[in-house]
């Protein structure tokens, strides 16, 4: 639907902007930044050559061909001639900033959150900006059946993780739950020794959460009944059962994938399948379950038993089967700075170009419940942009700029930023935004 709406809205806004600019209201409005001259790749609608994007208060206020949009007087113009502008890239599975969760005390720790672990100053975080990424799902590791809560983060130049959080409507940090099966979470007791044991442990935990939720519900409806003592692990799983928190499930082998589908059906939780090396073997089953996949593209198969079946074709096969597909970095497994390359390798193996670019943007946004805010160039969405000097899927194309909510967060022409983009002495050091921003406007940043 958005496909037809956005040009209309864009036109409408263009018309609004074209009205006589004498009113004082214009001065009260936040300033406009106009991105002019780029080839726009809006996602899910046709590319626009020589386009204009107007940004006000961090949101897209208008988007369309130059002829259709009047740049308001006084707007700050960003000249993007010879450039390509697409939505900021969305990585549905990232480990930049070391967002580790669970410890060795047990195989299921849904109460821990990567928000409490994420290091905004890590060099890896700025490297992600250098790759054109503007939103990431910061994930705990896969050594646990339940490794902890993930954090959906906007890669603003923040001083604390709070500055990067997406939030649920009630203000709580927004994120999913990391789960894993297959070989990574296996081990000595209390970790599971077999696949059946892994599934049984997860099943038991969800049954416990169902009982907990029932007790809470009963107490809420009946003053006589006592509410259960707050249990953080259970609270997290109740959010999963209620559909507020999506399960992001590490899974590779075809039978492990099918096990996840079975558990999701049994407990009716929302799930995105991650990595899915073997998904090409069970694409129809995944499609029938209506479940989305977040795919990793690695240069070679193997490296561990469950990645034997890894193929570049996985994304193409899933897409053809009707499965919504995003692509992720799993950084440090693949490098955020070369995120576009992963989509290109999927195209190399038959994925349509449009679908591959959507897999880096809107498809990822949908898997994080963020499609109303990011993932396409549409009026009202956050002004998160990745600016390129050519075809996004060419080896010779480089990310020139990254914008978050209309603010420049990476600029290849800035030597300091360039260091993070290509490497070199100092590139491994932490990124100190506080040094530049703490004194600005009383440290408001």
């Amino acid at each position, binding site marked *: 639907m958005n496909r037809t709406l956005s040009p209309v809205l864009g036109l409408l806004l263009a018309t609004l902007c074209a009205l006589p600019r004498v009113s004082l209201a214009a001065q009260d409005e936040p300033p406009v930044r106009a991105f002019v001259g780029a080839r726009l790749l809006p996602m899910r609608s046709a590319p626009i050559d020589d386009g204009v994007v107007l940004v006000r208060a961090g949101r897209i206020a208008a988007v369309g061909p130059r002829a259709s949009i009047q740049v308001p007087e006084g707007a700050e113009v960003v000249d993007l001639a010879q450039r390509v502008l697409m939505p900021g890239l969305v990585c549905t599975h990232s480990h930049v900033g070391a967002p580790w969760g669970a410890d060795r005390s047990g195989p299921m720790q849904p109460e821990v959150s990567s928000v409490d672990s994420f290091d905004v100053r890590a*060099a890896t975080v700025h490297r992600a900006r250098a790759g054109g990424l503007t939103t990431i799902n910061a994930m705990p590791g896969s050594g646990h059946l339940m490794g902890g809560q993930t954090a959906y983060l906007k890669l603003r130049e923040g001083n604390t993780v709070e500055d990067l959080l997406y939030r649920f409507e009630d203000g709580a940090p927004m994120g999913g739950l990391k789960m894993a099966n297959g070989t990574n979470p296996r081990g000595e007791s209390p970790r599971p020794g077999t696949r059946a044991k892994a599934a049984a442990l997860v099943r038991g935990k969800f049954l416990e959460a169902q009982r907990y939720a029932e007790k809470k519900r009963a107490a809420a409806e009946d003053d006589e009944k006592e509410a259960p003592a707050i249990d953080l692990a259970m609270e997290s799983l109740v959010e999963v059962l209620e559909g507020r928190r999506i399960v992001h499930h590490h899974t590779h082998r075809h039978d492990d994938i099918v096990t996840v589908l079975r558990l999701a059906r049994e407990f009716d939780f929302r799930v995105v399948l991650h990595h899915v090396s073997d998904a090409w073997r069970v694409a129809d089953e995944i499609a029938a379950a209506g479940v989305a996949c977040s795919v990793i593209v*690695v*240069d*070679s*198969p*193997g*490296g*561990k*038993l469950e*990645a*034997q079946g890894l*193929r*570049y074709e996985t994304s193409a096969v899933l897409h053809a089967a009707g499965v919504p597909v995003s692509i992720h970095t799993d950084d*440090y*497994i693949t*490098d955020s700075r*070369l995120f576009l*390359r992963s989509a*290109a*390798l999927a*195209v*190399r*193996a038959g994925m349509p170009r449009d679908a591959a670019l959507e897999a880096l943007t809107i498809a990822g946004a949908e898997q994080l419940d963020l499609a109303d805010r990011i993932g396409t160039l549409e009026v009202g969405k956050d002004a998160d942009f990745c600016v390129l000097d050519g075809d996004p*899927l*060419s*080896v*010779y194309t*480089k990310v020139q700029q990254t914008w978050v909510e209309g603010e420049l967060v990476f600029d290849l022409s800035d030597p300091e930023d360039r260091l993070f983009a*290509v*490497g*070199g*002495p*100092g*590139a*491994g*050091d932490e990124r100190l935004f506080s040094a530049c921003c703490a004194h600005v406007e009383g440290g408001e940043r």
Partner: protein
Amino acid sequence: MIALILAVLFGAAPLAPQQESIALKGTLAVRAGTLHTQAGPPIANGIVLVVDGRIVAVGSEAEVVVPTGVRVLEAAVVVPGLVDAHSCVGLAGWLNTDHDKDEVDRSDNVQPELRALDAYNPADPLVEWVRSFGVTTVHTGHAPLALIPGQTIVVKTRGNTVDEAVLVPEAMVAACLADAGRERDGVGTRAKAMATLRQSLLDGRRHADAVAKAEADEEEEAPERDLRKEALARVVTGATPLLVTVHRAQDIANVLRLREEFPELRIVLDGVAEAPLVLEELVAAALPIIVHPTMFRAGGETKNLSMETPRVLVEAGLDVVMQSGYEGYVPRTRVVLYEAAVAARYGVPFERALGMITLDAARLLGLDGRLGSLEVGKDGDLALFDGDPFEYTTRCVGTVIEGVLVSTGERPR
């Protein structure tokens, strides 16, 4: 002239079926929209003719006549078969489990007698995998995980046994002065690593001297056979090059010092993430370099790694080639084509980046008389692509080894 000879060979008289199959083994022609020979400028609408495994003609369509009956392959772009200057495929097994991990034995820090020849598995799926991306020759062996983990080998990516694959049975002896060489039960410090390496080379020197003495003087008794000392003797006398994996600038400086102490050593530098910090010293030393994969992970001792280092080294005039390197996890091997592509992305000119995985790599391995360029007399090893080989979305559509089409697409098995 060549066309004439071939016409005689193939067209003059019909051969009996049996003879025909023998004659046609290792024989084919490849027609390319663009032919990158590494022996001159690219040739538009070029043809390479391979007979009995060797290249017998290279040129434009007008210059090369393909005899009737010879199979003709076609591709948009054709380059010499790719040469991976340093890998661990065939030893570092693709499943990465105890049964197929043969890249390092940790019972001792110094084991130059361990032969890659005895460990290389030509049936490992990753050999076939890299071959499907145009890689026809691999310098592979023990991984940089111990001070001296063992030897390396050069193989063609074909063959049912190592004997069918091998080109150079003892290519180099590997050494590691990077962090991984000091981990686990290895030597604990840099100074200890250098002292151990020095002592090992001195042991080799003494053995070599004793052998020489016995050979020169019948009165002298030859030293007892000792596989380790014999291997070290070959290294210290320069018979076998020493491949030293090293990343930090201070460790690179240590290697340069070692070379002054043992002037006969033939050192090949490997990795060198911090090479740009000691560029002048490297230029003065003029050692050949197998630079880290362009996309190698930055962190720890490689935190200062740059994807521009290949360009920096090329522009400094150094003898530098590309590698897929060693990977301990996922991906288990890199694809050297991709690493050269990203080197090109970061400024290495196209032909030079191609050279880093063809002719220059062959030269570093001492095999440029036979491999690395499309020239008459060389092995008929070719890689066929449907576009610019470095583009992410281009596919390798065929790999030819000595005139035999051994891969027809990028696929596992």
